């Protein structure tokens, strides 16, 4: 299971829950699983979120693979990205 951490204001959309263990194998699956768990978060995942997988930041990379033991952070996009969450 990948360890997923929400950075910044995102946890306000999950009732304060900032850490998850998810079985997602790609960023697309990760967003899907998080969106199902917390529908309020879903809209914010569509745009403006960067994903750091094991220390490497990806932007607009839905197909990027996530390993079973990966550490994943969801954070505001760095450039050209949203600061709206």
């Amino acid at each position, binding site marked *: 299971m990948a360890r997923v951490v929400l950075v910044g204001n995102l946890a*306000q959309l999950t009732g304060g829950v900032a850490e998850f263990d998810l079985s997602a194998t790609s960023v697309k699956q990760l967003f899907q699983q998080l969106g199902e768990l917390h529908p309020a978060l879903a809209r914010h995942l569509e745009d403006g979120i960067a994903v750091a997988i094991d220390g490497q930041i990806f932007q607009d990379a839905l197909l990027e693979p996530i390993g079973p033991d990966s550490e994943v952070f969801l954070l505001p996009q760095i450039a050209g990205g949203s600061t*709206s969450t």
Partner: protein
Amino acid sequence: MAETMTNGSSQTYVGTRTIRPDGADKVTGRARFGADFNLPGQLIGRVLRSPHPHARIVSIDTSKAEALPGVKAVITRADFADQSSEFIPAGEMMMNYKDVVRNVMAREKALYEGHAVAAVAATSAAIARRALKLIEVKYEVLPHVIDVVEAMQPNAPLLHDDLFTVGVEPKPEKPSNIAKRVEIKQGDVEAGFKKADLVIEREFKTAPVHQGYIEPHAALASVSEDGSTELWCTTQGHFIVRAHCARLLGLDIGKVRVTASEIGGGFGGKTVVYLEPLAIALSKKAKRPVKMVMSREEVFKASGPTSGATVRVKLGATKDGKFVAAFAELKYQAGAFQGSPVQPGVMCAFAPYDIEHVHVIGYDVVSNRPKVAAYRAPGAPISEYAVESVVDEIAKKLELDPIDLRMQNAAHEGTKAAYGPKFGPVGLEETLNAIKKTEHWNAPLRKWQGRGVASGFWFNIGGETCASLTVNEDGTISLMAGTPDIGGLRASLAAVAADELGVPYDKVRPIIGDTGSVGFNFLTGGSRSAFSGSMAIVEAAKQIKAELCARACKLWEATPDQVEFSGGSVRPLGALAEKVKPMSVADFAKVAGKTGGPIGGVGRINAQGAGPSFGTHLVDLEVDPETGRVTVLRYTVAQDAGRALHPAYVEGQFQGGAVQGIGWALNEEYIYGDDGKLQNAGFLDYRMPVASDVPMIDAILVEVANPKHPYGVRGVGETPIVPPLGAIANAMESATGIRFTELPMSPPKVLKALKDKGLSRA
């Protein structure tokens, strides 16, 4: 097919100081910048701007202007459809289309002095100016607010009655000027501060500063009868200009072709649109080309500076210098519309350091100023200036060497950044070591002279990029990129292409294609263009090499394992080498038509893997106790470039960032009167450093390779503006014993501080 990277070929240009492909045109004046483009029959466009910082627009009567002979079109808010609320990338920040349409042309209210209210196109500039005077605008003048802290007060004049603070619970019921509250948090800062032997807490203020590009905004638009639109403009991203103009004017993107001119500086400020949609709207209405160029006053009053801010920093350390807890609160001016760079400011504030407990809060605040735009490492110089000042104070209080203190706490590979993920290989420690080894670090100082050091961080990005390589009939290479060349892109990409294909550097001709000639590219920003562009060129070259090997197999009736590409040629292997001779790129070019047609490759990528960049700056300065004037005596930059594709250009980025930071620290500021009007909208009164104000900036290239890039490249353009503010403030403390907490440290402020301490000779 066997293949070797031609990095192993006999000729390598990456890492050398090759001749700049655009150099001859620039030194002879042949290069065409934004205002150099003209078309037959063109009209001149001018903008009517609000004289009020805050006013409701009751009515606009353009009838007299339209009746003036020579006036061919007049536009107002009525010519732009309103936009729904949708956030879109604006450089390294976000902007909402609902706000963009209001920023390019005021609708309900004018929100800052200089806000566009109407525009005209006429047969001459003189007629256009006369027409502006004939436009009758009825304003209901409203109270204004300029200062960020005042704008946050509950009773402050309200800019937008539909702006409710995002990021606070419960959701506010009343609108305010605070657009957003953001935060990052890790650990338990209160518990962390309890472990500290020393806690320093200070508040800092910075002034808004303009990017200060020499070339003003300029656009030339031509709309044909069928709606096809051509636009020439100075921009950091012509694909973004295309998208914004198409959206604002209801055009099909495919019908808009944008050509980026040579650019006389942008630094983030040319990532948004101002004149471009106006020129298109005027051209469409007038049915003639329309050219618009901002005056310097308009550039200052109506294009984005970066935020001014108030920053409170609290940092705790043990007596042996270990940082244990950090807190900061940032209040950033966004200008008239939300979208300051407070989020990256929050994320960068403590990024250089390995601190267990961190909490940073940021506020995005609107006020009656021009909407801010990106400026090199948006948001980071402000927050990191405050942090680096406090770090220096801790070093003084604990009697520790400031470089050793930074080294002890420096982020390194595996450090968990305050904003979440762990760093990969990064070079902060290497830059600190490089500075400490300089002769500069130990050079003697005299009375009234001081020395300061500071470090800085910026993320860097990749993004969507498309670039092509075409093998011409004579074996020369045409290289087309789609991001405007601001800091050496063409030279850098040409070197990569030459190395990859094993051809001489001067046989590669790089150009920047228009939006109709090359696939989509995100803009030049985020220190991305050379990083991403070189990855796209490697991909394009890979396609060419594969194609040449395939053709060689057909010509030689060989199998793929019998050929390889190396040293600029396809080479036969094994027994085949006795039968046929290697074929160079030029050899294939001669027979291209007979072997399958034109040869080329296109790299289309969404570049990932941008490596963060750290830098450390060292500055000596001297304070004149009679006038408060500060002279920068010596300056050294050390920064991790990953791998410098073109060292001279990389050094230029270091030097340019340092000089802009010197201006930010010592002189530059937007000065407003009580009437809310900008008082220094020109280079005489808005004092930027010129060549005679600064010493030669020494540049040290640190190269800790980025493992995610084929050449190890990191972005280099933004980090260099982050450390100067702190380094200079620390040097001021070293020279005077006074901790300056407000920028700029201009002569009047310095003199007052010296007098207050009884140190001035004046």
